[in-house]
C-alpha cells in the first residue's frame, strides 16, 4: 500500500488502526463509523480499488468489513468498523461508493442494520409478501430450525410506479416467464414499444445458503457452496476452499494448483459457450443456436468423461482436489476442447458475417466504462466496457501466475462487444489448459488441511466475474460466518444501465448478453 494512501487515510480518520497480514499482504483499516464512508471513497476514487463486498458479522460487537480489491497482487484492503450490538446505526457507504448499494440493502434486510443516508431500503431479499416483518434471519438469535409463523404466501407486494408520462405504464414480467428462464421478476417502465427503464426484482430463489452453512464443518459447507450456483460450481467451491486454506495457512501441492486452473478454465469454457448459445437463441438465429448448443453439449461431455460430473461437482477439496487425472485423460480432454474451439471459431466467423444477427447486438445494451467503474461491474460484462479487471491477472491464485495469463477486453460496451469478449476468453481458456498439461508437476494433488480458528477471504475469477468468499471458523472447526459475494449479485446491480431506453424486442438480447445467473445472485 502506498505511503500517500496511508497518509490520506490517517487524515480522514486520525484514529485509524492499520493491520497488515504478513503472509497475504492484505491490509485492514479499522475506522470509526463516521469516517468509514470517506475512507472507502478514498480507496475507490483515489487509489483504483474496486469494491468487492460487504461482510457483516455479529460477534461481541457489530463488525462491518468493506472489502476492496486492488490492481496489485497484494492489493486487498478491508475497511472495518464496529459498533455495540444494541446500536444498529451506520453511515451509509453507498452514498459515496455506489457499488456498495445492494450490499447495504442486503445487510439492512437480513441483519436489521440501519444505513443512514441510504436512498433505498426495504423489500429486497426477504419479500414483504412472504416474510414476517422484523425477523432477521442472519442474526445469531434466529435459528433456521424454528418454523416461522407466516410461511404461507399472502398478497401484499405491489410494483412501484415511477413513469410519470401520459400513457406510461409498468409491464411486469415473471417470475415465471419465457420457456426455460430462471425465476426473476422485471418491471419494464414503458410507453408502448419503447422501454425507458427495466428493474429486476430478484431473490425469488433465496435459499439462505449463508445461514444454512453456519454451524457446519467446512467439508459439509462445501457441498452447499458447490451447489447454490451449479453452472459455476467449481469456481465457487474453489473460492471457498481457498478461503479455508488461507485461514489454515495451508500449502497446497503444486500439482493441485495447476489442475485447479485446468478445471476452472474448463468450467469457463463451457459456461461461456452456454452464454454464447443463449445470445444466439435470443436473437432468433435458429441455426446459430443449435450449432452452439452442440458445442455446449460437447463441452459438458468432455467434462463428464474426464471428471465423472458434467458440471464438475465433487472435485474441489479443502487442501487440493478429490481426485487426480492421468496424462492420457487430460490429453483426451484437451484434444476435445481444442476441436470444440475450432468449431466455435467457424461459428464465430459465420456470426460476424450475418448482418441480421449483428444488427441486433450492435449498440444494444451499451454500458460506458465510467458507469461500469461506478457500479464496480465485473467479469466479461465489465471487460467489454473497457474495465479490464480480472483476478487471474491482478491477483493470480492457484497456478495462474505460472501460466502467464493476460486478460482481454473491448471498449464499446455493447452486446456485440460482450459476445466478442466471450469468444476471446474461450481461446484463452484453452491456452491455459494447454499450459497446464505441458507444465503439470508430479506429486500429490491433495494434502490435508488442519483447520484454524479465525476469518479469511479469497477471490476467484469465476466465469461471470470476481467472486469473494469470506469464511469465519470457530474453535471447533465449524463455520461461524460465511459470506458469498458473487459476480451475478454485482452485475445485476448494474443491469439497469444496459436496459435504458430500448425497444421492447431487445430485452431478451440484453438479458442474454449479460449472461447472469439468478441462482448465483439469490444464494
Amino acid at each position, binding site marked *: 500500500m502506498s505511503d500517500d494512501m496511508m497518509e490520506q487515510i490517517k487524515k480522514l480518520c486520525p484514529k485509524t488502526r492499520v493491520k497488515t497480514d504478513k503472509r497475504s499482504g492484505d491490509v485492514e483499516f479499522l475506522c470509526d463509523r463516521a469516517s468509514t464512508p470517506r475512507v472507502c471513497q478514498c480507496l475507490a476514487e483515489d487509489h483504483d480499488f474496486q469494491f468487492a463486498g460487504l461482510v457483516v458479522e455479529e460477534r461481541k460487537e457489530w463488525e462491518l468489513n468493506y472489502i476492496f480489491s486492488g490492481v496489485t497482487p497484494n492489493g486487498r484492503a478491508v475497511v472495518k468498523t464496529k459498533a455495540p450490538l444494541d446500536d444498529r446505526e451506520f453511515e451509509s457507504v453507498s452514498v459515496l461508493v455506489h457499488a456498495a448499494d445492494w450490499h447495504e440493502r442486503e445487510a439492512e434486510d437480513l441483519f436489521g442494520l440501519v444505513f443512514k443516508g441510504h436512498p433505498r431500503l426495504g423489500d429486497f431479499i426477504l*419479500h414483504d*409478501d*412472504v416474510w414476517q416483518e422484523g425477523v432477521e*434471519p442472519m442474526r445469531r438469535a434466529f435459528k*433456521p*430450525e*424454528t418454523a416461522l409463523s407466516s*410461511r404461507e*404466501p399472502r398478497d401484499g407486494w405491489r410494483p412501484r410506479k415511477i413513469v410519470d408520462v401520459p400513457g406510461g405504464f409498468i409491464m411486469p414480467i415473471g*417470475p*415465471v*416467464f*419465457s*420457456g*426455460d428462464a*430462471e*425465476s426473476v421478476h422485471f418491471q419494464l417502465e414503458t410507453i408502448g414499444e419503447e422501454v425507458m427503464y427495466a428493474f429486476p426484482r430478484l431473490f*425469488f*430463489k*433465496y*435459499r*439462505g445458503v449463508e445461514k*444454512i452453512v453456519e454451524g457446519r464443518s467446512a467439508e*459439509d459447507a462445501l*457441498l452447499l457452496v458447490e*451447489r447454490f*450456483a*451449479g*453452472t459455476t*460450481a467449481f469456481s465457487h467451491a474453489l473460492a471457498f476452499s481457498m478461503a479455508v486454506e488461507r485461514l489454515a495457512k495451508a500449502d497446497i501441492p503444486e*500439482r493441485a494448483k495447476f489442475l485447479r486452473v485446468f478445471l476452472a478454465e474448463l468450467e469457463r469454457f463451457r459456461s461461456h459457450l*452456454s452464454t454464447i448459445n443463449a445470445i444466439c437463441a435470443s436473437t432468433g438465429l435458429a*441455426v446459430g443456436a443449435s*450449432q452452439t*448448443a*452442440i458445442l*455446449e*453439449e460437447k463441452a*459438458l*461431455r*468432455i467434462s*463428464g*468423461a*474426464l471428471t*465423472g*460430473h458434467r*458440471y464438475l*461437482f*465433487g472435485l474441489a477439496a479443502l487442501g487440493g482436489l*478429490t*481426485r487426480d487425472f492421468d496424462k492420457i*485423460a487430460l490429453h483426451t480432454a484437451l484434444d476435445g476442447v481444442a476441436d470444440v474451439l475450432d468449431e466455435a471459431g467457424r461459428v464465430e*466467423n459465420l456470426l460476424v*458475417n450475418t448482418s441480421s444477427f449483428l444488427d441486433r447486438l450492435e449498440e444494444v445494451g451499451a454500458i460506458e466504462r465510467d458507469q461500469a467503474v461506478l457500479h464496480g461491474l465485473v467479469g466479461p460484462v465489465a471487460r467489454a466496457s473497457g474495465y479490464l479487471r480480472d483476478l487471474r491477472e491482478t491477483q493470480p491464485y492457484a497456478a495462474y501466475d505460472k501460466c502467464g495469463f493476460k486478460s482481454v477486453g473491448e471498449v464499446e460496451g455493447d452486446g456485440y462487444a460482450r459476445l466478442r469478449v466471450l469468444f476471446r476468453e474461450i481461446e484463452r481458456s484453452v491456452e491455459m489448459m494447454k499450459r497446464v498439461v505441458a507444465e503439470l508437476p508430479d*506429486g*500429490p*494433488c*491433495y494434502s490435508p488441511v488442519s483447520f484454524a480458528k479465525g476469518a479469511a477471504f479469497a477471490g476467484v475469477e469465476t466465469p461471470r466475474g470476481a467472486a469473494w468468499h469470506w469464511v469465519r471458523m470457530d474453535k471447533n472447526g465449524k463455520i461461524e460466518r460465511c459470506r458469498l459475494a458473487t459476480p451475478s449479485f454485482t452485475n445485476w446491480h448494474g443491469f439497469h444501465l444496459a436496459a435504458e431506453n430500448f425497444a421492447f424486442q431487445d430485452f431478451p438480447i440484453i438479458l442474454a448478453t449479460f449472461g447472469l*445467473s439468478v441462482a448465483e445472485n*439469490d444464494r
Partner: protein
Amino acid sequence: MSGWIIKGLKSGVVSTHYPDGGENAQGVSPGLPSPAGGVGVDTPIGRCPTSALKAKDGGAALDKFRCVHCHRCDRNVEPTIPWDSSYEWAEKRGKTPELPKAFQRSTHIRVLDAGDCGACLNEMKLLNNPFYNMHRLGFFITPTPRQADLLVVLGPVADHMKTALLKAYEAMPAPKKVMSVGTCSATGGVFEDGFMTSTKLEDIIPVDVVVPGCPPPPLAILHGLLLVTGREDEIRSDATARPAADSSGKEAGDA
C-alpha cells in the same frame, strides 16, 4: 446465410438413439453408486453426507433420491462403493390417470424453476439441442401454463416461489401431470434442512414422476418424460443395459 445451411448440413444427424437403444457416449451421465452386495462398507456409508447410502444386510443400499454425486463414497476412502453409468432413474409416484392418447404424442411442458441452482435447468434446456432433440419425440416447451399438459418443477421450492408455483399449477387445464426434476425437489437435497425451502415438491402439489439426480442429465429427464406420458413401452429393453464405468479415477494421494 448459405454458410449456415452448409454448417447445419455438415453437422449431420447427431441425435441420440435413446429410447430406441442405449446411449453409450462418454460423459452423458454422472452415473450413480451401485452398492450391490459388498461387506464391510461402513466407512463409505459414514461419509455419505445426505444419508443416501444406508446399511443393509451387512452391505450398503442406495436411496437414489438423496444422492448428490459428491463421490465421497468412492474417492479417498477404503473400501470404495462401485458406480454405474446409468441414467434411467425416474420413478412413477402418483395414481392420477394416464394422459389421453392425443396428449401422449404431443406434450406441452411448462418448465418452472422453483429455486434450482441452474444445473437442472440447463440440462432441461439441453433437451432442445440437436443431441437430444426432444421435439422428435413430441415434447414441446410452452411459455404459458394455460397451454401446458405437464409441469416440470426444478429446485427445492424456495418460499418466495411458492405462490408462483401454485398459480402456475392451478392455471393448467386438466388433465395435467407434474414431474419433479432433480434431487432438491425430490427430497430437498443439500437444502433439506433449509429454512427458506420446502423439503420436497410432493408436499406441495401432487407429483406423478420423480427424476432424481444432482443434476439429472438430459437422458434421465427424457426417461422421466416418457414415464410421465405413459410411454414406457417405447423404451427398448436393450436401451437400459449399460456397462459399469470407472468414474472414480485414481486416488488423489498417488499420481
